[in-house]
């Protein structure tokens, strides 16, 4: 029997893939969403699926942009202009020696501290550190492999995160990490992605 055009969500039936997707996108009609929330509040199976799919949807790596010659030249010219004409004023800070300048978001920058610059780190000593963001209510560390696939992530209120030894990192393989800071006003600051490798113990 062909499914009706109306979303049918009952409290006893498990949610369909279509319902889960519509819930994530916020496109369920109001009454159906309320029924779905009632079901999800007591159904571990559907709720776990919803959480996993929401996490996946929000973490799909974006496609790398293919740079052609002319836009690259234009970008280089813009960088040169900013460096020569709009020099940032020097201010005293107590930054650690090996800081990688972060890419800016609309609101703020984040500074990753270590590991940086393709550093080689023994697995047992792998620990991520970054500078505190005074406007932050918490941080999220995200580690991916070279293809952008998720390897590990953690939410923390600290400025250091250590992946448990149960999380596997292969020796010699290049990984990338970045840290996001959640601000109280809802904005997010993010560091640049920094590469590192796992070395011998």
């Amino acid at each position, binding site marked *: 029997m062909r499914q009706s055009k109306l979303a049918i969500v009952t409290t006893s039936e498990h949610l369909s893939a279509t319902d889960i997707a519509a*819930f994530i996108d916020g496109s369920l009609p109001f009454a159906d969403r309320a029924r779905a929330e*009632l079901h999800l509040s007591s159904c571990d199976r559907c709720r*776990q699926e919803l*959480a*996993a*799919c929401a996490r*996946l949807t929000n973490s799909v790596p974006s496609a790398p942009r293919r740079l052609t010659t002319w836009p690259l030249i234009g970008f280089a010219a813009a960088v040169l202009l900013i460096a020569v004409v709009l020099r940032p004023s020097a201010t005293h800070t107590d930054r650690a020696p090996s800081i990688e300048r972060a890419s800016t978001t609309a609101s703020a920058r984040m500074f990753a501290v270590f590991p940086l610059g393709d550093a080689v780190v023994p697995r047992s000593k792998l620990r991520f550190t970054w500078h505190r963001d005074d406007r932050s209510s918490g941080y999220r560390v995200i580690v991916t492999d070279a293809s952008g696939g998720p390897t590990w992530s953690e939410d923390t209120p600290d400025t250091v995160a250590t992946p448990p030894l149960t999380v596997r990192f292969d020796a010699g393989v290049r990984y990338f990490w970045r840290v996001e800071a*959640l601000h109280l*006003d809802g904005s997010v600051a993010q560091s640049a992605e920094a590469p590192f490798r796992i070395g011998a113990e």
Partner: protein
Amino acid sequence: MTVLPRSLERLLSAHVTAGVGDIDAEWRAFVAEHTRLLLHVARSVSTNHDEAMDAYTFVLEQLRADDFRRLQDFAADPRSKLSTWLVVVARRLCLDLYRRRYGRNRGPNSHSHRSIRRRLQDLVADGLDFHDLPSVQGAGAELALRQAELHRALDDALATLTPHDRLVLRLRFDDDLSAQDIARLLDFPSPFHVYRHVNALLGRLRRTLEQRGVESAVP
């Protein structure tokens, strides 16, 4: 009404009107557009490279099966973005393949699930220390009984919340979803609003437990 991506429209149109060569070309274009997403899903189910590639291949086979039946069903009644729907369907297909090979597991990692649940209990009880029942079975029947009473009291307190509020707490503490993901999923203005709402709910649960006479972790 959700607008279909061009790659899907062209694929389904080629399926109806064009020859095999055109269908293959449109299918390759569709796969190229969505391969990153599908690989991302496959890797989430298995971190083993070979298993993930098997799962990715299986997903493509299933999407193409029966004259693109799944994609046709989506196109006939699109209620979400294609990318979101692909994540859900691909994940289900990957799990189906995994279970066929390795059997149905016990669900989420039991140990981590218990420890996450214990975090909720600890936070609500503000110093109360709910132990897993099996770990205290050797400590006497009276202790076990008291532990069970504490568990029931927390479950009863959770039942006083609205479904929406219960869902917020379960996503946060049972599924370990980040505040940012919860904010997007449940339409909170920001992750900060999620934190604030969770804290308010924990306070409410605490007061409910106190009203029911649960004042100490000591059984």
